[in-house]
């Protein structure tokens, strides 16, 4: 779903005000630190062209798909200025496990118990992520997962659910394919399938950092088609749960 946000900055939709309001409220209840700094950083206006916007492509590796039950194993991110991905900002954190890593997910991520024990505590990892995220809009593939896990983690650690502005490359790609009248095959919206469609190289799957880079590159590829001149307003690529917009 592309949010129906008018192009002009002065025509902010009511959802935007609500969103900013929710951010300010969350900032007041957040403990001092990276999360609060992130929430206090001004939110880019919805009418700002994507080329002038700053993003952070993020990927979380988790033990499963349920934010209530499962937990974060590692996080990777890389900053994008417009559609330029800067490898100098590429970073990732392994999260120290509190329990054993389920075998099924260990096979996928190649993160074993021993490996996970070398990670940092979750709050430290979140701290690094939110520091990188300050002033930037998050980009992720299948963003609902990232939102769910980050909200859940913040709820547990800080007692708040931070409102996150996020670009979902899966939704963007889906819209683009539908608009082009192209059939979407089973698994056709998976990150690696979509990347092949846009002539992007195959990376080793399920490595948080490379999946973040992969999502960032896919976002750049999608934008190159949707808005070759980069003038598309940011609001048009944002994905939020319906209650916000």
């Amino acid at each position: 779903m592309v949010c129906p946000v008018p192009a002009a900055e002065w025509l902010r939709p009511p959802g935007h005000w609500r969103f900013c309001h929710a951010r300010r409220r969350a900032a007041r209840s957040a403990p001092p630190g990276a999360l609060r700094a992130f929430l206090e950083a001004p939110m880019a206006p919805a009418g700002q062209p994507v080329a002038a916007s700053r993003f952070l492509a993020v990927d979380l590796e988790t033990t499963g798909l349920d934010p209530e039950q499962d937990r974060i194993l590692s996080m990777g991110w890389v900053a994008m200025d417009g559609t330029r991905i800067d490898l100098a900002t590429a970073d990732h954190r392994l999260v120290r496990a509190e329990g054993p890593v389920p075998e099924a997910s260990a096979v996928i991520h190649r993160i074993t118990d021993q490996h996970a024990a070398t990670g940092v505590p979750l709050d430290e990892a979140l701290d690094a992520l939110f520091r990188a995220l300050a002033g930037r809009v998050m980009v992720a593939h299948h963003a609902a997962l990232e939102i769910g896990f980050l909200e859940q983690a913040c709820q547990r650690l800080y007692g708040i659910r931070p409102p996150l502005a996020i670009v979902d490359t899966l939704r963007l790609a889906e819209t683009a394919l539908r608009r082009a009248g192209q059939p979407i095959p089973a698994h056709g919206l998976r990150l690696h399938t979509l990347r092949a469609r846009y002539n992007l190289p195959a990376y080793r799957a399920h490595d948080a950092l490379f999946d973040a880079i992969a999502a960032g590159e896919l976002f750049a590829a999608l934008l190159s088609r949707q808005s070759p001149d980069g003038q598309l307003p940011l609001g048009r690529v944002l994905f939020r749960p319906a209650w916000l917009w």
Partner: protein
Amino acid sequence: MNGELEEIREFLDRCPDLAPLPAASRDAFVRQLTLRYLREGSRFPPDTEPGLWIVRTGTLEIRDVHDTLRDRLGEGDLVHIPAAPEQSLGPVTEDALVYHLPLDRVRELAARDGAIAQFLADDAPRPLASEHGAHEAPDHNRLLTTPVRALMTSNPVLAASTLSLREAARLMDRSDISALLLHTPDRPGEPCGILTDTDLRRAIANGVDPEQPASRSMAHPLTTVHRGTPAFEALLRMARHDIHHLPVVHEADGSLAGILSSTDLIRHQGTSAIYLVRDLRRADDLADLKDIMQALPRLQVQLVDSGADAMQITQTITTVIDTLTQRLIEICERDQGSPPCAYAWLASGSQGRHEQTVFTDQDTALIIADDAPEGADDWFAALAQKVTAGLDACGIRACPGDVDPTHPDWRRPAADWAREMDRVLQHPAPRDAMLATHYLDMRVIHGDAALFEPLRQRALETGARHEALLNALAGQARDLPAPLGFFRQFVLEDSGEHADTLDLKMRGLLPIVAMARVFALHAGSEARGTVERLRAAARSGVINDTTADNLVDAWLYIANLRARHQARQIRKGQSPDNALDPAGLSTLERSHLKTAFRLVNDARKTAL
């Protein structure tokens, strides 16, 4: 920290151009890179940004100020642009992911790392900006300057020289290659000799035991060329040594990069049209023709690549399709017995005008002598059936408007044609305008031209005298959909398969074609080609020279754009069409295209 970006470092390790850099310097590199996605059709470098660029996926072209192809960069290729060029260096020909080391970071790295400074200073991998600035005489023979890298076959087959002659022959047969590179067992990856079809032939003629090692029959030592060697120099080297294959090696470390054959060079010269026509003439049945016609899309790509303009391309393609039609008819005549009387096979539409591209359909007709014996029509109906089906099977789609001789309206005796053409050209009903355009564009492809030419002559003479026909054709030219809407925006197709694209034929070319037809008819010209018609009309004063020049330029520009668009689609394995996505055009191209469309609109308003 570098372990994390392993995947990218591994890629850089494989880049031949970076090979001279020590591993530690390459590591320093990785973290300084930015990633950019360049869409096909956009210009390189984006925003004419200098620095070091490395192609991860996709392809781009480097062209000089004369738009001559200087280089084609693909995966792993690197280009160093030391200063911002005045204009872009060339188009991105396939969606590309590129790594970019911005100029300030290049300088920073060079200041910190002697090895990098050295690398940038001596190797200066392809210093392009200077080349772009220099105004050299345009060279017409691209073969002089195209690097062999752009023509060679990458990933050549390399085998151990201990292989038996028989095994070597089998490997060559399986890989469908005419030359096999061989290496000594202790140095894999480093070719020491070459075994070609000729060597095999000689070995058999001399009674060499096929179980003997291939090394006894191979040619060595090898004559090699660098990837950047101009193709012309490679050709000279082949001629001098009387060989047809050259291994191509990387400048940096001498490692094998590809193999260049004399066929690659010939293909680049654009002589393949000659081969295609020759093969069609020799074909024995429909299956052969179908096979040969598979090469037609590649021919268009080669023509575009070799810098042919739209006139040359469409004329060449039309010649190929004419030959195909002729050969199909000859095969039918052979199979169903000689024709009962004289006849001629006609083509109208783009084929009649010599303006076909690889994406075309059939507009054909039959004219039969008046002395046809009873029942002759069955023979011609069968011919029509087979030839149109044959053309369709060879990729020339059957006409959606039923303009083909399987339909009795398009298969008539000469006297009947004469009456029909008189009717349409002298007293055209409004809906006859379309028929008239077909009649005016018709051309004899095969058979007795004397049956049709006098009819066309007469039609042109009478048509030019009849206001009604001129008005009908002018009306048709005016009614074709306009390419530009308000605010000079492209009018895009708003539905169907090609939604949001621009139909270059319908909105760009056909309006010009239609105008040229009216003007030429008014001028009493026999010409069929659009450019020819416009020139003829200007000569006889029907339109002024400026209008003619403008329309010719517009036609050439749009037709060139279409030929390139289709070549791009073919290269990507898509089927070619006329639907261009204007978003993929550069600003300059877009503004040229708008100018071309504006000329068309202006001419329509003033001249019709």
